[in-house]
């Protein structure tokens, strides 16, 4: 850290770097959908203006607001690096992870809108009730089901068999896909893309033996047949999972295994 400044003029060095860091800061307005049931039954937009590096993420901007401007701003985040799936929110009208969205990529010259994800009950500000989402996840039995004796070592699988469901193992359960689905918005009984993706992960796993059972669950009135292939889920997925393709593969498996 110090070597670079020591090479230059001792006195001017720190000032230079301070000036540099100040010049590339930009003024960003975050328009956040606020809701506090202890104050009002209505939600409203609140603008926050801050000086921030455009290479920072939306989550950094939210932190800056919460730590420096308004401590009552409420949102979820855990790892802050796109792995835990806590901070899915609707940024500029699109579901994204706040921790994977750089301010410079979403037009910081205009106000950036931040809303809670849709289709789930808003509890406060950007925090929603995830319970219906996880209920659908639990309903597809997202765990390995086997019979017979447990092997003394790991269960072997060929690279080809592993490749078959590789895409759907990437899911972090952030709910960006499910809460971007127009069918889910209007009918919470639909399993939603995330639950189907996680069923897909086991249905096409050569080690698993409950594929038929999971297919039967998704053959439900509110299962895969409600998918309208609008591709909102594929667009929304922060992990780049081809969600709609996975749903179509489950549909195909249902048809080919029935006939």
């Amino acid at each position: 850290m110090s070597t670079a400044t020591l090479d230059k003029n001792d006195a001017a060095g720190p000032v230079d770097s301070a000036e540099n860091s100040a010049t590339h800061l930009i003024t960003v307005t975050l328009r956040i959908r606020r809701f506090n049931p202890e104050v009002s039954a209505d939600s409203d937009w609140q603008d926050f203006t801050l000086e921030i590096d455009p290479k920072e993420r939306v989550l950094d901007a939210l932190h800056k607001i919460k730590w420096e401007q308004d401590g009552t701003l409420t949102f979820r985040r855990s790892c802050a690096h796109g792995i835990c799936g806590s901070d899915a929110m609707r940024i500029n009208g699109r579901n994204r992870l706040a921790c994977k969205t750089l301010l410079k990529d979403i037009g910081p010259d205009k106000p950036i809108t931040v809303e809670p994800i849709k289709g789930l009950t808003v509890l406060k500000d950007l925090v929603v009730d995830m319970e219906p989402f996880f209920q659908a996840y639990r309903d597809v039995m997202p765990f390995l089901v086997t019979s017979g004796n447990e092997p003394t070592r790991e269960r072997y699988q060929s690279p080809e068999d592993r490749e078959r469901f590789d895409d759907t193992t990437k899911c972090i359960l952030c709910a960006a896909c499910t809460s971007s689905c127009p069918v889910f918005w209007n009918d919470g009984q639909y399993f939603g893309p995330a639950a189907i993706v996680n069923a897909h992960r086991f249905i096409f796993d050569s080690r698993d033996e409950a594929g038929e059972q999971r297919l039967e669950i998704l053959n439900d009135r509110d299962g895969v047949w409600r998918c309208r292939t609008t591709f909102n889920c594929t667009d929304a997925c922060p992990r780049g999972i081809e969600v709609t393709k996975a749903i179509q593969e489950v549909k195909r498996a249902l048809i080919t295994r029935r006939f």
Partner: protein
Amino acid sequence: MSTTETTGTSEPTDDVALFDVDHPAPVIEPPRARTAKTPKSTRGNFEMYGWLFMRLSGIVLVVLVLGHLLIQLVLDGGVSKVGFAFVAGRWASPFWQVWDLAMLWLAMLHGANGLRTVINDYAERDNTRFWLKWLLYAATVFTVLLGTLVIFTFDPNIR
């Protein structure tokens, strides 16, 4: 408290009086949320057959409807030739009877199934769903039966 700054005017005082920590405002729940009590699989393959039917009937309807439009509107002098005699002449042949019957049934069932999914997608309350579907099924059955009756009992000597 900061939100009261933005709401402005006289509203906040009303809100403060109405809601506090012990009496929070009701949250807005999405329609038909899934809970642990949600009934498990309905069994049966109805939705799968419905989905397959939409695809297959769609393919067949492309041929039937485009052929129908071509014959009715383009070939042999176009729409001006269509009259009572033209219809009577066509329905004298079992081939055209079957063509029109297939088109009627497939188009009506295809459209009805499509509207059924639209109702399922967009009607939130169970009551609304029930009555909209009831209306849809009644209209479908009426149209299909009436059309079938006309195709089979058509009498060219009616006048």
